[in-house]
């Protein structure tokens, strides 16, 4: 393993009233991760530095920050994966209000989840089991890998730049909705809500969310676009629309 060397960090310190970058020098080996260095700063130089973290293994999605301007998990960003020789800048997620230092208030996300109709399963089979084939659950198992790090929410233009939290639930909850809509056992219909309340039309498919996903979930192609298609099929397909006019159904 290579010898430890000094890294210069610029870490945003402050709270909702404002703040600025503070500089720290940390001795670390290149195989270490950014979270190790932040912990070192916390232990030796700034005991009160606020960082949110839990598993330190990329499984819980707590330590989301922006490293050199990119949304990333601090626990999965190795020092030797960052450009050499430059200062390393660490700042809180921009899309959510700062609590303190690198910790943001992500409670808005938890409120969105509450709005989503949960699974409404069909009855069990006569022998008390549910039968689902692996190939029928592969695609929703991909969505269920989500660790709720909210990096996709942070990078989403609709939420980050346009501040449309009132109109769009964001990529994280589009995959939650897709996971329910495509669940073989589910009987609920969320398509009207996906269109009207959750704002599927606002996503303009820039795929930024997919790029930052640490679980490599193909958010845009496998979840958002299929949901958009289901909305289009329901509301804009001429044949379906005509049928709906005659049957008097829908909005």
């Amino acid at each position, binding site marked *: *393993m290579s010898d430890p060397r000094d890294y210069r960090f610029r870490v945003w310190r402050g*709270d909702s009233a404002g703040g600025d970058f503070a500089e720290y020098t940390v001795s670390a*080996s290149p*195989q*270490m*991760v950014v979270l*190790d260095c932040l912990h070192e700063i*916390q*232990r*030796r130089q700034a*005991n*009160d*530095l*606020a*960082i*949110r*973290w*839990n*598993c*330190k*293994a*990329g*499984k*819980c*999605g*707590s330590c989301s920050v922006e490293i050199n301007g990119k949304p990333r998990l601090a626990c*999965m960003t*190795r020092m030797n994966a960052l450009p050499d020789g430059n200062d390393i800048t660490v700042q809180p997620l921009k899309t959510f209000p700062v*609590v*303190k*230092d690198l*910790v943001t*208030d*992500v*409670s808005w996300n*938890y409120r969105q*989840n*509450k709005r989503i109709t*949960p*699974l409404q*399963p069909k009855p*069990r089979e006569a022998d*008390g*089991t*549910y*039968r*689902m*084939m*692996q190939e029928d*659950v592969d695609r*929703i*198992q991909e969505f*269920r*890998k*989500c*660790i*709720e790090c909210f990096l996709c929410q942070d990078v989403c233009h609709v939420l980050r730049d346009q501040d449309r939290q009132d109109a769009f639930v964001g990529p994280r909850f589009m995959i939650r909705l897709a996971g*329910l809509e495509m*669940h073989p056992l589910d009987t609920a219909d969320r398509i009207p809500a996906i269109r009207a309340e959750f704002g599927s039309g606002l996503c303009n498919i820039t795929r930024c969310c997919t790029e930052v996903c640490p679980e490599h979930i193909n958010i845009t192609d496998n979840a958002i676009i299929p949901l958009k298609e289901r909305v289009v099929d329901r509301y804009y397909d001429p044949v379906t629309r005509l049928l709906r006019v005659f049957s008097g159904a829908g909005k």
Partner: protein
Amino acid sequence: MNVKDIQTIQHDVLVIGAGGAGLRAAIECATRGLDTGVVTKSLLGKAHTVMAEGGMAAALGYADARDNWKFHFRDSMRGGKFKNQWRMAELHAQQAPDRVKELEEWGAVFDRTKEGLIAQRNFGGHRFPRLAHVGDRTGLELIRTLQDKAVHSGVAVHAECTALDLLKDGDRIAGLVAYWKDTGRFVILRAKAVILCTGGGGKAWQVTSNSWEYTGDGYAMAYEAGAELLDMEFAQFHPTGMVWPPSVRGILVTEGVRGDGGILLNSKRERFMFRYTPEKFAKETADTEGEANRWLAGDKQARRPPELLTRDVVARAIAAEIKEGRGSPHGGVYLDIASRVDAEKIRKKLPSMYHQFMELAELDITKEPMEVAPTLHYFMGGVRVDHDTQMSNVPGLFAAGEAAGGFNGANRLGGNSLSDLLVFGRLAGIGAADYARGTQEPALDEAQVQRIVERARTPLMRESGENPFVLHEELQAVMQRNVGIVRQREEMEQALREIDRLRERAATAKAHATSQYNAGWHEALDLRSLLLTSEAVTRAALMREESRGGHARLDFEGERDEWLKKDIVIRKARDGSMGLSAVERPAPPPELAKIANASIEDLEAGRV
């Protein structure tokens, strides 16, 4: 500070901890119509359960129709070296299948068999493939499913809210005092019943698979409130933690690697586990590589490979190989699945292991063996509870999951933890709901609140003092050195002296700046729980003069019958010191003893 100025929240039942046990308990209380709250140190969905990998053990009988609760019960008892509380092991084995099926109804999507049923994988100590799983991210599936179920069941979640101490009205529980991390402000949570689902205390060691949350809060709060702790000497070292690079040392490598065919090799490339099969397991374990390979290929007559012996056995074997100079370059042994299973299957069944090694160690597990060594993983001991209701000796105080003791005995089988969370989380919920319905609103004692708040504020008020992070590191070094995988008297006595000294220094710990989201303050407050947990483990380990399961003594080798008959129970003495007693265990129920001691042949033939 005037107590009247402190925010007060009221619930019927309050759950501390939002891991699998806490959420399952809260769902049970809420669906029974009780006003239920959960406090959690972290955000919802981030609790340690999320890191569970391999699966949850339940005798569903889908993967092998011969399986039933009796085999599962027998496996848990043998794995726990018969130190398990019999009734708890019975309840667990009988109820686990229903808990797994219920999760599926709530939206969990397990891997499937060819017939479309829940797939089950092999794990150490389990006679049949028994673990319902989702690749190697089963904990995530479990916690997300419970999280969604809880918020839609009306459970109030108080996130990033850390419990400080319990409140009592006379002998019974009255709630607790906590602080909000985001503001640093205190909050009184009043409740008729409190359920501790606070997990374990692995953060007292250096090399551990546990996250920062595992500071033994539940043990400390329960102990201070007068509850008894049981089996604290039994701490589990998981055989396979990462060893390289240093910053990931201790991170878990799932037993699923061995369950799916991985083998352990020393530096001479010997498959050394064949030399470590205990006599009691010899009849049911393969003794040649040929037989072990036939088992992997699906031969139902072949016996299981020795890599799938229980965790205590495998961890000690690895430690012995390393100690005797046959370790890998970074002080581990090799765990090889690359040469056993094709790359595509590895990536499908062990995606997060693949990802973890690729990203953190720059190693491709489909091409090269991993380096692994034991890592402190789990506490078998915990709050002593009634086996059916999960209530402690303090009226209104319940415990479930890793915070409770008894079910796992001297050693837990892999996969039994996730089903433990669900089975006993639910039972604790029922117990607490029944208790809360039958009790009057407890009174609030303002003097207790005052004392708790004053204690918590002290580190912030000091002019100068010790760095709490440094004290924590020193404690970890003490426990790692002296109360490790193999123990002896002198080292443990040394640990107790050092814990005493650290406690004196912890009383002078200083937290800089304000109480708002202040890691140094949180660390200073956690020291009490860490020190108390360390002392409890060490004192109990010193008292138990035998080697059994997760507790191994160099100076008292082998299991001793006289110690099988005793539970070590810890309780705060009147003079404030830690009181230990060796309590005689009642004789096992004859029906259960018959199942646990039955031969496989008799069980398979339905003769027991």
